[in-house]
């Protein structure tokens, strides 16, 4: 399934599953009990599980002291806070590059997107979640 041709939430989540399965050899696996399709089904179940569990947490979550401030901080400010952390950690160059990109990021409708702040919020949540890139010698 190509992401460019999908539009519904279910199709987009399916495309996200496909992305995460790239690089897995299914030729050898198909000889065993796990096929690509059955694994994709399991993956989609887990995706919906993660999505729904978050939904229910949101519904039961009361006003927790200390959490509301972070929740109400605009995502651009959260990125600036990450820049500050990078500077404190001695990564001045990365902090400046990040600040520069944040300045380049258009706000509101001029970005061509409706939810640019939501995307930025997602990136903040995923910050540092990937293994660090191998250093080149």
């Amino acid at each position, binding site marked *: 399934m190509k992401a460019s041709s999908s539009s519904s*939430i279910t199709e987009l989540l399916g*495309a996200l599953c496909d992305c*995460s399965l790239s690089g897995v050899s299914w030729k050898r696996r198909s000889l065993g009990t796990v096929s690509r399709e059955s694994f994709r089904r*399991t993956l989609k179940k887990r995706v919906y599980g993660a999505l729904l569990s*978050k939904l229910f947490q949101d519904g039961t979550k009361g006003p927790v002291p200390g959490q509301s401030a972070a929740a109400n901080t605009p995502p651009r400010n959260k990125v600036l806070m990450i820049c500050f952390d990078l500077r404190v950690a001695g990564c001045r160059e990365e902090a400046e590059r990040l600040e520069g990109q944040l300045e380049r990021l258009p706000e509101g409708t001029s970005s061509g997107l409706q939810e640019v702040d939501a995307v930025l919020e997602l990136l903040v949540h995923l910050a540092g*979640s990937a293994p660090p890139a191998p250093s080149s010698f």
Partner: protein
Amino acid sequence: MASAANANLNAVRETMDVLLEISRLLNTGLDMESLSICVRLCEQGINPEALSAVIKELRKTSESLKASENSTS
């Protein structure tokens, strides 16, 4: 009409380039394809925190699959 659509397309392209660079600097592990899917999911109203949980779950599951593949080969 067509020029307005072109201008919007250029704005989206430019925004996507900046978002990809921010994503790379934040070490989120998203490539352009995953990022564009995530952007479209956010545009559909999916909560970004819930979406980040989904992506982490997908990574965890696919990593365990790849690890089991390596251990059996």
